[in-house]
Structure formats: structure tokens, C-alpha cells
């Protein structure tokens, strides 16, 4: 039961200079019944603790501006919302000191003072277009730190399931400013915008080339991951850059953690790897090579030079970046001409890496063992085929590539043999399905075993 107690004065009203009478625009409950926010008719909003009769904070709009509705408190976000001059929405938090520095957005819809917090949010949604226009204007002039802060704020307000298309516009604005002003570049803002699924390469075609130019390889990686419409020319440009990166530089990068973890697992398994499985062993590989190299001396030399590619020829960050390219969508006909532009060193290194992946995948069924996103064996094979297609003559002529190609050939041959053996086994195994399957052990059984 509520009891009516003796009243007391919470605050007195200061008569406004230019007004005939003072009045209160509104009183709203804040975090609990002991806290209220009072909006007076002029320019200020004050937070009071009722039991102490003490003001805890006060915010005022600039001279010349007027608050046109009572400020309300959003308990979900702990933010205050108010409207000034019937058209500017202001959102701030308790620790914002100066109201003008907090979030504000000018809207085309006119507010009337009859507004409630839940409605304010509906309006914001509707007016997102003009609100983002306003943000864009800011984006064109503000320093990098401020832009990053704005983007952060904006993203924290987004519903991740339903991102607003205007964010794409924002990215566009950032990119165009970076292109115009070489001193301006915000990796942080862009890397936050790319994973929001409202961007694509077509929406912002300059973004990925810009990232490449700025050597922002983490952003490149994100673009390759999230954009599904990257033209083959750009994909190849990325690949070329990644392959040419020095490993020392690449290791300093910070990349998407899962992609690095995958390569690490690949490499650490390589260390643990001993005998080979799945129908392939180095011995078999050498045996097979006899018909290719006849001179015994040359053979011995060749043997020494061309050990199968069991160590990763590139550093792990470089590998993670290349893996990202391997997983992109492409059309072969469009890709081939660009692939032909690669230098022979680039081709050899790339092929060695692909061979490494192929061997790793084939020798321990690695691709099935982990939960990370990674290139599939088929993707790897497709790239091997394309690379051989585009550069076959160069590779055959190059002395460096010879051992590599021989290895690849013998490995492919051993695989083909393995698969033909598997074909035979499949025939026998099919017979098994005709046999009566052994009964499931279940919770209890009585069996007879014999020891010899």
C-alpha cells in the first residue's frame, strides 16, 4: 500500500529572463523512482536524486536553442533523449559533460512536444536517411579519431540482424575522402564497417584497391571474406601482392584469428607428421621417378633437390592471406588472363604453396579434422590446374620449377593409383552390405571369447 507522505520541494524554478512565466516542460523518471529528470521550459535538463533533494547533473543547450520536448531516459541504453528546436534529436549519457558534443542529428520531420521515448526511436528509424546525411557531412571534415568514434557509436546502435543500407553510404564517403585526401585514412572505421553485411564490392568498388594501396592487408582479408562480387582482376592483384610480401613484413600483421589458427594447425601437424599415409610415401615417389631421369648422377642430384613439399614455403600470415584468395568465387576464363601476368618467381612460389596444401590435405585427411574455414581440396586443385594452364611453358623451361613439377607428377600418379585401388576395394566392400550386420552391443550382452 502506498502511503502519502509529507511533501517537500525538490527544486525551485528560476524565471526565464525573456518569458513571462517559468514552467516545467516535463518530469520523467530516470533509472528508478528515486531519480528524476526535469526539463525546464528554457534550455536545461537536470537530473535529481529525490531522497537527497540534490541535483546530480545538468545539461544545457546553446544560447539561441530551445528544448522543445521533455527529455526522457532510455533504461535499456542508459541514454537521455531530447529534441531541440523541433528538429534536432539529441542523445547523451550521464557522463557526457557538454551537450553539444554528444550525439545530435537534424531531421526533416518536425517533432512536437507530445513525443515519448519509444516513439523517438521509431522516428530515428524512419529518418535514417537524413540522419546519415548529417553524419556524412561530419565525415567529410572531422579528424580520423572523431570519425572512428562516430562510426563506433553508430555501429553500437545497429541491429546486427538488420543493418541499415546507409552504412554502405558511410563507407563510400570515407573511401572517397581518403582518395581525395592522402593524409586521411581510417583502417579502424573501415574494418568495422566491412563485416556489416550491407557492403559489397559493387557498392564500394574503390575500397579494396584503396586497402591494397594503403597496405592494409587485414582490411583486404575482410573484403575477400565478406564481398562475393570481387572482379577477377582485383582478386589477382591481391594475390600478386600477397605472394610478393616479405614474410618478415607479413608476420607483423594482425589478421583474422581463425585464418591464422588454421594455418598454425596445418603447420604444427606438419611437424608432428612422420610417415606418410594415404598411398603416398617419399620412397614410392622416388621409385616412380626413375623413368623420368635416366642418368644415375642426375637422379641422385634430383632426389636431393626435389624432396616433396612437406614444409610450408611461406610464413603463416602470408599463407592465411593466400588462403583467403583461394576461397573467393571466380570465373576461370576471366581469371586466366590476369594470372598470366605473374612473374615466374611468383608462379613457382604459389605453386609450391599449393603443392604443400595438396600434400597436407591428402596425407592426413586434414581438411575434415578442424572446424575452421579453409580452402577445400577441390579449390586447391582448381588453382593448381589454372596455374599450370596459364604458365605451363614457363614452368617447364624454368630449372627451379623442374623438381617441383616432377614431385607433383609423381604424387598425382600415386594418387591416381591409390584411387584405382580404392575402386577395387569398393567392389569388395559392397559385398559387406549384403551380409548381416553385427548386432549393436547395447547395454548388456553375454558373449563368448576365446584366447589362444
Amino acid at each position: 500500500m502506498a502511503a502519502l507522505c509529507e511533501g517537500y520541494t525538490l527544486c525551485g524554478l528560476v524565471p526565464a529572463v525573456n518569458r513571462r512565466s517559468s514552467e516545467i516542460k516535463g518530469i520523467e523518471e530516470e533509472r528508478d523512482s528515486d531519480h528524476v529528470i526535469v526539463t525546464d521550459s528554457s534550455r536545461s535538463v537536470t537530473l535529481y536524486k529525490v531522497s537527497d533533494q540534490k541535483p546530480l547533473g545538468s545539461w544545457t543547450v546553446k544560447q539561441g536553442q530551445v528544448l522543445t520536448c521533455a527529455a526522457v531516459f532510455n533504461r535499456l541504453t542508459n541514454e537521455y533523449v531530447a529534441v531541440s528546436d523541433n528538429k534536432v534529436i539529441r542523445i547523451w549519457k550521464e557522463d557526457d559533460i557538454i551537450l553539444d558534443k554528444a550525439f545530435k542529428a537534424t531531421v526533416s520531420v518536425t517533432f512536437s512536444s507530445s513525443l515519448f521515448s519509444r516513439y523517438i526511436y521509431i522516428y530515428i528509424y524512419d529518418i535514417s536517411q537524413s540522419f546519415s546525411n548529417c553524419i556524412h557531412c561530419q565525415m567529410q571534415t572531422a579528424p580520423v579519431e572523431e570519425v572512428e568514434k562516430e562510426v563506433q557509436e553508430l555501429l553500437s546502435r545497429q541491429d546486427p540482424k538488420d543493418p541499415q543500407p546507409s552504412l554502405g553510404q558511410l563507407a563510400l564517403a570515407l573511401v572517397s575522402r581518403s582518395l581525395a585526401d592522402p593524409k586521411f585514412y581510417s583502417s579502424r572505421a573501415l574494418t568495422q564497417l566491412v563485416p556489416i553485411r550491407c557492403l559489397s564490392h559493387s557498392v564500394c568498388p574503390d575500397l579494396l584497391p584503396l586497402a591494397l594501396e594503403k597496405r592494409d592487408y587485414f582490411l583486404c582479408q575482410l573484403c575477400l571474406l565478406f564481398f562475393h562480387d570481387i572482379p577477377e582482376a582485383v582478386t589477382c592483384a591481391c594475390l600478386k601482392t600477397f605472394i610478393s610480401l616479405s614474410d618478415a613484413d607479413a608476420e607483423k600483421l594482425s589478421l583474422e584469428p581463425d585464418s591464422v589458427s588454421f594455418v598454425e594447425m596445418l603447420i604444427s601437424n606438419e611437424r608432428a607428421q612422420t610417415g606418410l599415409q594415404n598411398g603416398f610415401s617419399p620412397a614410392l615417389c622416388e621409385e616412380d621417378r626413375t623413368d623420368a631421369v635416366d642418368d644415375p648422377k642426375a637422379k641422385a642430384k634430383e632426389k636431393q633437390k626435389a624432396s616433396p613439399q612437406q614444409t610450408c614455403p611461406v610464413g603463416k600470415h602470408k599463407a592465411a592471406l593466400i588462403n583467403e584468395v583461394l576461397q573467393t568465387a571466380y570465373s576461370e576464363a576471366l581469371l586466366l588472363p590476369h594470372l598470366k601476368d605473374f612473374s615466374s618467381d611468383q608462379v613457382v612460389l604459389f605453386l609450391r604453396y599449393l603443392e604443400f596444401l595438396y600434400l597436407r590435405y591428402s596425407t592426413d585427411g586434414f581438411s575434415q579434422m578442424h572446424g575452421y574455414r579453409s580452402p577445400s581440396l577441390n579449390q586447391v586443385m582448381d588453382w593448381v590446374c589454372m596455374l599450370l594452364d596459364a604458365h605451363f611453358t614457363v614452368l617447364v623451361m624454368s630449372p627451379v620449377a623442374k623438381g617441383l613439377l616432377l614431385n607433383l607428377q609423381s604424387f598425382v600418379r600415386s594418387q591416381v593409383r591409390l584411387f584405382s585401388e580404392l575402386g577395387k576395394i569398393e567392389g569388395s566392400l559392397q559385398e559387406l552390405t549384403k551380409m548381416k550386420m553385427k548386432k549393436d552391443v547395447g547395454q548388456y550382452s553375454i558373449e563368448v571369447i576365446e584366447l589362444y
Partner: protein
Amino acid sequence: MGEFKVHRVRFFDYMPSAIRSMAFNSHTERLAVARADGAVEIFNFADNYFQEKQVIAGRDGRSIEALCWVGCRLFSAGLDGEITEYDLENLRPRYSIEAYGGPIWTISGNSEGTLLAQAGCEDGTVKMFEVLEDRIQFQRNLSRQKRIISLSWHPSGAQIAAGMMDMIRIFDSETHATHRLLVDRGVGASKSREVVVWSVACLNDHTIISGDSAGKVQIWDGLTGTLIRTHLVTKWDVLVLAVSQWQDESSVIAGTSEGTIVQFQFISSTVGQQDKLWVRTRTFKNHSHDVRALVHTDSAVISGMDTQLVVRPLLDKVEKNTQESALRKIAFPHRNLVSCAKKAGLLLFQFPDHLELWRLGESDRNTPGESLPVKRKPEKLIQLKTKLQGEDHICCSALSPCGSWLSYATVAAVRLYRLQISSNNISIQKVSKLPRELKSVHQLCFSSDSCRLFASSSFSSVVVVALDQTDCKYLHTLKHKSSRQPIHILSPSEDGQWLATANTDCEIHVFNLRKMKLHCSVPAYSSCPTAVSIHPTTGNLVSVHADQQIFEFSLKQKEYSEWSRQLQRQGLHPLWLQRDTPVTSIAFNPNNPAHIMLHDVFMFCIIDQSLPLPEAKTKFYNQMILRSLPEPQRLRESHAFKTCKNFQHLLSVNLLEDLSLVVVERPLVDIVAQLPAPVRQKKFAT
């Protein structure tokens, strides 16, 4: 050799409790493990990772958040707000003291072993306790903070780093000054969520390493308070960090809620350069669930979750393909949770808070074929609950061979029940008056004629109690005067004359039960016995040890038997020595005195002492080959070790009086199926 009828039992729903916390003592090489149910176990890493002690069984509602060694003393703290020190000789808590700070999240000792720091959660203070000889005493509070989640002492003892919400605070334990390092929150939507610094490590060079709920491992300069490097390692939480315990502190591992472990090493990024950085080097994935507990020794990473203990050697420090480089998973306790009444065909299963008594099924023996039709199904006869919630968990239990007595013990009490079981009537009656000597028991065992109950108790003693229809009477306490460590094996001989005991000091003593005094002690061997049994006819004592060695000792001659000497001369087969689970029981075949039956988690084996021992080059697992050979040739190819791997994940193997075997299996997949789901992992394109 012979045919065996086997009761294959899979209805024991044993469910190990998740590992919550671990502490490794690098001097004694002992690992202490605390489980979610409050149980504390000790593994001896110097002796083949043998689980030498179950210090204390759990208890409902007891949650241990942190363990800590101070010298050879073990302390724990938990959400009940108490600090407990354990009596490692008598396997019970020595004392518990209330820290008056609300739930405790973490506890840490300084390197001199003189001070213990403990962090309260609700009240947010770091409390310092002085470690005295027989207790700990509150010394002072460091200044009050927000909730403290993690703690780490600087090796000099001059500073403590404390991980909390959104920050790390560094206390100078002398000047009481503090400074703080602010930890970034996650980006995007998680920006509004506080970041929890789950783990913090303070290194000798004043580097501070932190792991947090935003998935970061961060390296800080603790003197200047600057952030040196951030490694984003997971999209989930970095739950725990461990620094290599030896000299150089050049390696740190981080465990995540995805089940991965990531290693960082302090190395120069390019060969030949002097300046070193913390570089992320390796990722391991041995767990499907959160890695909440980690230990980093100089050669191995030890992690615990999804109920298993995993020891993963770091390959750069050991030779490839040796036993030392093998990954070890310890999934089952190294002691028996199953007792078998071999005369009555009954099984007793021990759970933390209850016991189940089952009668085995039956079949017509005459039917040929590998699997016999089950005429009568197995039946659960009794489910015995330990009374109330909040009670201590069961630490040991036993069923008499005739099936008419059942006993169990908790840390506080012993219970004895008389059972009467006929085909259509079951009665159970609690024996109300037990001798007062029967207390503080950690191992129970009945004599073969079911007239005696043996209980291992405090100070390495054994209490002997006589049972008859109506009465339970104290007879004697057996004790070897110089033994201190707890007895973990009790093994009476079939004829009632001997009782063999083994303790965690690796001592085996044999007592004469007629004279109630020590008969002899088996010469000490360096590895702990994991199973001991006395042969019913020859009177030889057979012991198997954590290092897989087998000995046979004649109680008459008081010396090793000729067979045992020959085995030592020739050596065990390498494949026998490479097994990584201990033999937990030994039985003998009354029809063939030359047969010794043993089992570990992955096999059971009959050693035929009349056959030649296998040499190193002999094919050890040869049952399939022998099977395909004609009879005369088979005999020529046979060797003494006949191993059967038909049954896996064995909790127990027993030989019944009718010479049929009872194997109790607990497939790991069944345990995994009962675990809660791991954190949701987003698969690409879902």
C-alpha cells in the same frame, strides 16, 4: 588356452565431473586437480602421471575455484568464501577458514611460500594471509576494488597484479600504492559489455600478460603501464593463462572457451636479432569444451576440461615418436568404482551421491556362437542415496563376495548395510552401531569369506572389524610404524591368512591376520603399486606398478619368485611398457594356477606363467595370428601375454566364481554425449 563367457556391462552411467582448476608443484612434480563437484585429486607426474591420491571426495554445493601449492601444502578456495588446507597424508581437509570477503575467485602464493593472497569477489578486496606452520592467519587487506577475478604475484613478491572488470590493477605489496591498466572492450555490439580479465600473469621482468573475455591476450609493461601488444586469439573468451614454470618464463599458453590452446613464445622475430618479442607460435586443439584449467611445465602443456586431463608434450623439447612425445588423455580415475560379489553375481556401482546394486543376467550356456541369448536380463536391485543434499560425496565403497554386506564411506562417516537377496525378495538393513574406530576411512574391502571388513584409515592404518549375523565388532588396528602415507590398496588373501596393503610411498606391507601383526614388507620399488593381489594357492604376491613393471614376491620365502627374477632379467616387452593407463586389478584363475589376469582401460590380459616370456622382437599382440594357425603350430608361437582388446574403456574386469568374466565398459562417446553443448561455433555459411 580357453573359452570365457563374458558379461559385457555398459549400464554403469559413470560421469566424471569437469575439471575446474589445477595447480602444479614443479618441485615435487605433483599436479593437484579440482573438479566441479569439489573433489581434489593428485597426480604424480614423476611416476607416469599416476593418480596417487583422491585427497577428498566432492560435496554438493562445494565449488573450488582455485588451487594453490605453498611448498608441499595444498590450499583451495571457492565460492563458499572459505580457504581450505588439505591433510595430504590422511586425505581430508585439515581446516577451513572463512575469509569474510564473499565468494573467492582466485588464490595465489608468493614464491617464498610465506604469504597467500586471496581475492574476494563481492567485497573486492585482496586479502593477505600469512602462512604459519599449522595454519594461515589473516594479515591485511589491500585496498578495496571492484570484483577481482584473477591474481598473480611478481616472483619477487613485491607486486601483485589483479585482473578485474575492464582493468588490471597492480598493487605494490610494500608501499600499498596501486596503478591500473585499462583493458579494451570488444568492438561493435560487445562494446557495451564489460570485459572480464579472466587471467593475469606477472613475469620476472615485470611484463604482465592478460587474457580476457573479448578474446585478447595482451602483453603489458608492468613498470610503465603501457600496452605492448595485443593478440586477438578467439572470438570467445580467453579463460586461462599459464606461464612455463621453469627458469626462463619464455613461453605462455592461453586456453579459450572454444577448446583451443594458443602458445606464445618470447623469441626474436628474425634469426640472429637480439630484441625479443612475444610471438604467437602454436595452436592446439585437444578439447571440445572450454579450457578452464592449464598448467605449463617445461616440456608439456596440461589442460583440463570436458572431464579429461590432457598432457601434451611440446615437441621441440623431446624426441619425436618416443613415449614421452605421445599425447596422453586421462579420462578415468585410477581406482575402482565397481565392486563385484563374485559368489552372488552382483555388481555395486559407486556414484558421487548414490550407489547402485545390480544383478547380472543369465544365459543358457549351451548355445554355440559368439553372442549368447540373454535369458534373464540384468536387474537393478537397489539404489541407495546418501541422505541429504549438501552431504559429502562417497569416497569409497565395497560389496562382500557373498553379496550380503555393503559398505561405503564419506570423509565424515562410514555406513554398513546387511543385504538379503533371494530370487523374489530383497531386504536391506543398516547396521546401526559401528565401532568408533571405524572413521576417517578412504578404502574399504571385505575378506573372501565375508566375515571381516578392512578399512584403511588415518596415519596409514588399517582397521579390522569382525562381522556376523547380528554384530559388528572391532578387532584390531594394523599399522606399520614408519608408514605415513595413505593406503590406497587393500588386498586380503583367499584363505583369510594375509592382508596386503600398498601406500602412496610405494610401500607394500603384508600382515598376518591370524596373528594380527606384520608378516613382511616387499622390498621398496620406486614406482607406486597400482594393483596388488595374493595368489590363492602359491601364496605369491603379485604387484603391478605405475611404470607397468610386474613383480611376484613369495610370502613364504620372503623373496622375489624365480619367475619374477626372470621377468626382470629379460625385461618386459616394449609394447607392454608403452601402454599409458595403469593396471588397476589382478585376479587369478582357480582352475589354472599359472594364469594371472590383469586389465587396464584398453585391454585385459592373461599372463600364462608356464609359457615363455615374449622377447622384444616377438609380435606382442598375436591373438589374431594364433587363431589362424593349426593347433600344434599355435603352441610353438605362443608367449605368456595373451591380450584381449575386444573390450575398451574398461572400468573393471572381474572373474566370477563360475569362471565367467564381468567386464564393465564406459565408452567415452557416452560420456561426451552427456556433456553440455560447447560454446556455439559459427560454421561458415550458416
